[in-house]
């Protein structure tokens, strides 16, 4: 049996605040094999970002255990690239310096040209020396994406990375990011509100219940033997069925919120 890239065993998280307890996760089981692309979907506020923060080792679960490449998370050696839900670009740094932050902190020198190339790929070549306040929401998100891609980690955690992009840009970047991650056999966990995006990009979609999150459905996505990439996947026969299936799972939460993306799939 191959070593798992990520494993959550009976993970429960309860946030303690002065006002009271907030149960966020309840007895979550999750196994991600190396090179796998897994999407997490669920009603908003259910605990998706909490799962990513646990894997990144930012804090420990209240109960249960989190393993990254067989090591307890937080003490793991392998690199994790975590793209946070908000971009948190440092306003006093230029676009280029922001994109370089990850490399800088990981003491990875000599990759500056890589960052510039990435920024160019994502259409930011005219803004290298601008400050984040001069960028649109979508451009900011692309800078944050480059910042994460540049450190070239083994495991990617992406928290709604494409949400601020317009539909056309989003489709293009989904394809590019997917190609980049798959060709280098990166393990990826993607959090998204967009059911179509989840189905098009992933090998597996995990549907979570509302808070406290439990695993409601673990659905393997297959479009033939090899995953054809998001662009082809959208045109594949089974695509709509998968989307409807997941949509049915989420339907009971619709009263409380309308996940974005349904209209765009």
């Amino acid at each position: 049996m191959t070593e798992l890239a990520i494993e959550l065993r009976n993970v429960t998280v309860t946030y303690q605040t002065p006002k009271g307890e907030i149960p966020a996760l309840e007895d979550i089981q999750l196994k991600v094999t190396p090179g796998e692309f897994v999407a997490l979907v669920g009603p908003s506020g259910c605990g998706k970002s909490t799962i990513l923060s646990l894997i990144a080792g930012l804090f420990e679960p209240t109960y249960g255990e989190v393993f990254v490449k067989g090591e307890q998370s937080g003490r793991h050696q392998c690199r994790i690239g975590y793209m946070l839900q908000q971009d948190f670009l440092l306003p006093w740094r230029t676009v280029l310096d922001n994109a370089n932050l990850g490399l800088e902190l990981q003491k990875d020198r000599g990759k500056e040209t890589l960052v510039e190339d990435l920024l160019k790929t994502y259409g930011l070549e005219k803004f290298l020396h601008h400050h984040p306040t001069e960028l649109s929401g979508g451009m900011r998100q692309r800078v944050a994406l480059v910042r994460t891609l540049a450190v070239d980690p083994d495991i990617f955690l992406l928290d709604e990375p494409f949400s601020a992009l317009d539909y056309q840009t989003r489709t293009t970047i989904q394809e590019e990011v997917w190609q980049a991650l798959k060709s280098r056999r990166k393990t990826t966990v993607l959090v998204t509100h967009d059911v179509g995006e989840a189905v098009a990009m992933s090998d597996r979609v995990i549907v979570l219940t509302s808070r406290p999150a439990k695993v409601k459905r673990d659905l393997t996505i297959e479009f033939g033997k090899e995953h054809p990439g998001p662009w082809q996947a959208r045109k594949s026969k089974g695509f709509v069925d998968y989307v409807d299936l997941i949509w049915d799972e989420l339907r009971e939460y619709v009263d409380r919120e309308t996940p974005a993306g349904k209209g765009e799939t």
Partner: protein
Amino acid sequence: MSTIPRQQYLQKMRKEKWLIILTQAFILAAFIVAWEVMASARIIDPFLFSRPSQIIELLLKLAREGELFHHVAVTVGETLAGFFLGTFLGLLTAILLWWYPSLARLMDPFLVVLNSTPKIALGPIFIVWMGNGYGAILTMALTISVITTITVIYSGFTEVPEGYVKLIRVFGGNRWEILRKVILPASVPTIIAALKVNIGLTLVGVIVGEFLVSKSGLGYLIIYGGQVFQLTLVIASIVILAVVAAILYQFVAWFERRWISNPSSGSARVRVGSGG
């Protein structure tokens, strides 16, 4: 190549700027002339209110005798020493408080009490402890400025959005890197604001110290002039003090312009774009 509306806009800005400067100069000149005229017409008593011509005369005389420069130098020297020491100690303490949050919680009530105590009241104690000299003056200036510096800068540190800290941790950065890459740069505007307040507070401390020690400096000239009923000397010293304060303030403002070369960095420091 600028467009015509752009040129018109720039011209309007220039015109407005000059109009303001001219009006300001006019107000100052009118004030001085009115003062002089009223004093010579005996509407106000020149013995109590002095008059601009006498003040200038006295300043020239003091300058010729070299005494003026001595007193100005003493006050400026003490102020600069107090300012740099106060800023350094204040910044260092604020960093310590940030580094050890439990220390900050522990110190909080003490800082609040110290901050609202009139530190000037401690002056006589410092003279007894440090002797009647520069030591007491510097301690006075430091006591007044340092507590405020600590409070202002530390609260600036705590207002830095938590997400920036999370970002550094996500990339494996340690506490030292959080301080260097996020906390300090995000607090630059707060630190500058603290420096500006600090200049004023240090001057207050130095002048009060010189009142008490009464040996040299502008504070000494003021208290001496008052005691011998030479109001011209008092007002002349205050004028110089105002000039010194303005120059020191400009020095911080110049520093600010150099440090924050990008104008967007200050005002926008807490804007966090939602990537989602």
